[in-house]
């Protein structure tokens, strides 16, 4: 099974299909080519041409895997239509969520699909420079990617003359490090420009004014890695996978009381299925699912039928985010959990704007005093108002999303919050110095 969890046979593997064949020799170009690498690039360059490639990606319905789910074809078209002497493609492989390793694991198992995907993207939008941004601490991965780029260049798949077509695409690997916010696209571009990593107002979107002020496509690693498959097998084949509005597959990082791992799943798979993939719930009962990483939403057990896809998750107050699903059983306290997540988000916020610098910190402080047994009677209203204001006035997605743990917690677990607020008890027996709830047995943790 290797780096990825085994999934049902009928689930197509768009991203990790080649990983098993490459296992142990991920850096072997010949082996990768024998397994279909660079066929998509050939098709794009020889048959489709730039506009045809963008049209294919658009009609496949591929949406960005970086969290927001923006239609990739549309993004590429916007950058391609922007008049400019220079354009850039940036693969966002930073993987900001500390407990998620999906992108890095994919790259380590099969670097070729990203190298091919980013070359196709550069070819399609007319960019000669493509940058793969990964974490500096993954030194082995940086070396693997640099080797892969070099080998592909020598074989003529990229470089000065892509497959003899006369197009030039230079791919560079850029290690970055030092802050959570580097995952956000405008921050990542700032880091690549050598500036302090604070988000920029959007619009103008990077597709209009990005790296060094030039049109730039920033795509998640998984987004780009899906492109070769969909060009090779056709847009229809890709559109047929998963749900109608969000076709294709994505990597999820699963963690539950009985197991953990990374799996490639078709979008639209019900959350219950993913819980099963994570090893089920064990002897205890499921309390909540944290969907979307540190800024994710806390969903109750009766939403287990929700399909894992962009729009449905947004509707219930979570998001795909970093692609992480954490299963919490009855040992967890929602207030405690939301407080922890909000603290992380507040600590990592860049400090550029007031909602970012002060809003998130206050949200955490209110949650903290609820959890530590010194709430004020108005705290529930205060939290709701504050979260609303942060969402309304935030500069970047981070602040807006960082309110989700508390807002979703209040939406679905209001009685638990009220226990803290009005009765000074923590039903799960987690929060101190609040009196331990009757339901919880002391010492069970």
């Amino acid at each position: 099974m290797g780096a990825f969890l085994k999934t049902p046979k009928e689930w197509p593997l768009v991203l990790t299909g080649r990983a098993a064949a490459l296992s142990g020799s991920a850096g072997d170009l010949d082996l990768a080519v024998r397994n279909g690498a660079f066929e998509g690039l050939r098709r794009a360059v020889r048959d489709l041409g730039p506009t045809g490639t963008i049209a294919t990606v658009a009609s496949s319905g591929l949406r960005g895997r970086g969290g927001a789910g923006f239609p990739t074809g549309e993004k590429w078209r916007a950058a391609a239509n922007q008049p400019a002497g220079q354009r850039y493609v940036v693969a966002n492989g930073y993987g900001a969520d500390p407990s998620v390793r999906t992108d890095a694991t994919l790259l380590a198992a099969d670097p070729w699909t990203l190298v091919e995907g980013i070359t196709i993207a550069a070819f399609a939008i007319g960019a000669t420079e493509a940058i793969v941004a990964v974490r500096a601490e993954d030194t082995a991965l940086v070396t693997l990617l640099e080797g892969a780029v070099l080998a592909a260049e020598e074989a003529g798949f990229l470089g000065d003359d892509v497959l003899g077509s006369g197009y030039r695409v230079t791919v560079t690997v850029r290690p970055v490090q030092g802050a959570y916010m580097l995952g956000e696209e405008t921050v990542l571009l700032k880091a690549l420009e050598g500036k302090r990593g604070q988000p920029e107002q959007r619009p103008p979107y990077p597709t209009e004014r990005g790296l060094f002020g030039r049109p730039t496509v920033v795509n998640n690693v998984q987004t780009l890695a899906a492109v070769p498959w969909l060009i090779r097998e056709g847009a229809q084949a890709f559109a047929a996978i998963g749900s109608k509005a969000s076709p294709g597959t994505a990597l999820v990082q699963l963690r539950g009381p009985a197991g953990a791992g990374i799996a490639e799943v078709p979008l639209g798979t019900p959350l219950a299925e993913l819980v099963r993939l994570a090893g089920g719930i064990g002897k205890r009962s499921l309390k909540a699912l944290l969907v979307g990483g540190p800024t994710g939403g806390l969903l109750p057990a009766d939403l287990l039928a929700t399909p894992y896809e962009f729009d449905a998750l947004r509707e219930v107050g979570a998001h795909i985010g970093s692609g992480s699903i954490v299963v919490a059983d009855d040992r967890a306290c929602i207030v405690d959990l939301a407080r922890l997540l909000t603290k992380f988000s507040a600590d990592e916020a860049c400090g550029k704007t007031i909602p970012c610098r002060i809003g998130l910190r206050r949200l955490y402080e209110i949650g903290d005093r609820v959890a530590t047994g010194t709430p004020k009677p108005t705290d529930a209203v205060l939290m709701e108002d504050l979260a609303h204001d942060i969402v309304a006035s935030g500069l970047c997605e981070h602040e807006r999303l960082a309110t989700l743990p508390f807002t979703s917690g209040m939406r679905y677990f209001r009685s638990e919050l009220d226990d803290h607020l009005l009765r000074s008890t923590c039903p799960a027996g987690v929060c101190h110095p609040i009196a331990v709830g009757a339901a919880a047995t002391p010492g069970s943790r």
Partner: protein
Amino acid sequence: MSLVPGMGIVRGMGLTLRRFFAPKATIKWPEQQADVAPKFRGRLQLLYDEYGTLKCETCFQCAQACPIECIDMGGIDTKGRFHVHWGPPETYGERREESAVRRSGRTVPDATFPRFDPVDTGALDEILERHDYDPKAMLAILEETQAEYGYLPVGALKHISRITGAWYASIYGTATYYRHLRFEPPATASVPAAGTAHAAIEQRYRSGLDASLGYPRRAS
């Protein structure tokens, strides 16, 4: 001089009369407040209190808060030299104390003085040349400078600013943002591996999450 005698006076009085009936700009402040744009913040200036003492506490809060670094602080040290930014923000509090004492008239030891020791810029010049003196490569320049000196000495930052033409404040802003860059000499001589500065925070998040969930702790 007018030909008609007294005409000058008539003209002068005419002006006075006209002004007398024209709308006035004067308002009865503070009962009446001036009508200014909502984003108007007044002139940036340091004020004195009724004893003639500078009101500024040199707390550096404004310089630290200003997102675009248009507020910055400089001053004359005890040896009569002018400095902008006396070092890392961690020392702001310290200097605030110090300046309060100094304003009380007592002499204070100049603890910040050694920070401005000149550094040997030979290696730095090589780094700058490798990057073509290009401020766009600032992050790489700073990383390599840190690898060379073990930290980012103020003298080195000033040198980078002078040579590349990038503002000191923006170099400083970049350098303070990334966790792997630091301004103090490391406790040990060796430079820690890439990512260690951030790794501790991420590890704390992971173990905090596990503790919150009641899961057994993970290896890493």
